């Protein structure tokens, strides 16, 4: 399990470097997904499979899709199709593809040796049952506060993201709040 940890860490660091040096934000998000997948592998090796699943579902799924939606809302111009054709060249996706295939080979290796003793799952496995009992036992106040935080996030995003509608009144022009 040592070598899988080192390979995943190297993939995470490399893809994060590629994230902060890209000029096109879609390329950066592609590398960001690979970075999250590599970190999920690290979590799995560390004996936290529930956190690894949450990392993939929420970070690499929901948050990245949310950022992509906002990018698509921001620049919808006429040259979008030409830009799309320009983006979809092999040199764009070959880097994330290679890093993702490294992670795939690592996953196949972990599953392949999974049931053979000490090289399989780590011994100090903290499964989701223990996490759930702790989350709804001694951390129940934190869970409720997280719910209030998410509610504040929904209300704040709705209030900030609303475009002010401009209506022409019969007598005077006003900006509707």
């Amino acid at each position: 399990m040592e070598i899988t940890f080192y390979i995943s860490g190297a993939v995470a660091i490399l893809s994060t470097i590629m994230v902060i040096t890209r000029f096109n934000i879609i390329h950066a998000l592609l590398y960001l997904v690979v970075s999250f997948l590599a970190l999920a592998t690290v979590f799995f090796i560390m004996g936290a499979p529930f956190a690894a699943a949450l990392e993939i579902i929420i970070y690499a799924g929901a948050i990245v899709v949310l950022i992509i939606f906002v990018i698509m809302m921001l620049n919808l111009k006429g040259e979008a199709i030409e830009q799309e054709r320009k983006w979809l060249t092999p040199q764009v996706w070959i880097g994330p593809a290679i890093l993702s295939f490294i992670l795939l080979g690592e996953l196949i290796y972990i599953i392949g040796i999974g049931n053979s003793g000490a090289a399989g799952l780590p011994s100090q496995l903290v499964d989701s049952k223990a996490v759930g009992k702790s989350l709804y036992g001694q951390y129940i106040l934190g869970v409720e506060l997280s719910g209030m935080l998410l509610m504040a996030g929904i209300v704040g995003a709705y209030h900030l993201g609303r475009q002010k509608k401009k209506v022409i009144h019969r007598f005077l022009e006003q900006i509707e709040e």
Partner: protein
Amino acid sequence: MNEIQITQGLLLAGTLFMLGLIGVLIRRNIIFMLVCVEIMLNAAGLAFIVAGSKWAQPDGQVMFIFILTMAAAEVSVGLALILQIHHQLKTLDSDAASEMKG
């Protein structure tokens, strides 16, 4: 889980946090700065996971879930702010939003 891997995990978390901080400092696009803040939050979560793995306690993963919740709320509000900035200033340059005026 031996001591060496704990040290390497904390080093990985520190490296990722430093990369996110560098990204916040060197980029001027607001969306890039938001993404780099996500990287820094993720590195902090990795540190919690490593520490929870050392003592085999679920508290690290509980803290990771709280960080995840906070990151989700933060990215939604941040993206709404980016939409407003793009709507009002017609750019994503963070230096263009350097003046506070109502």
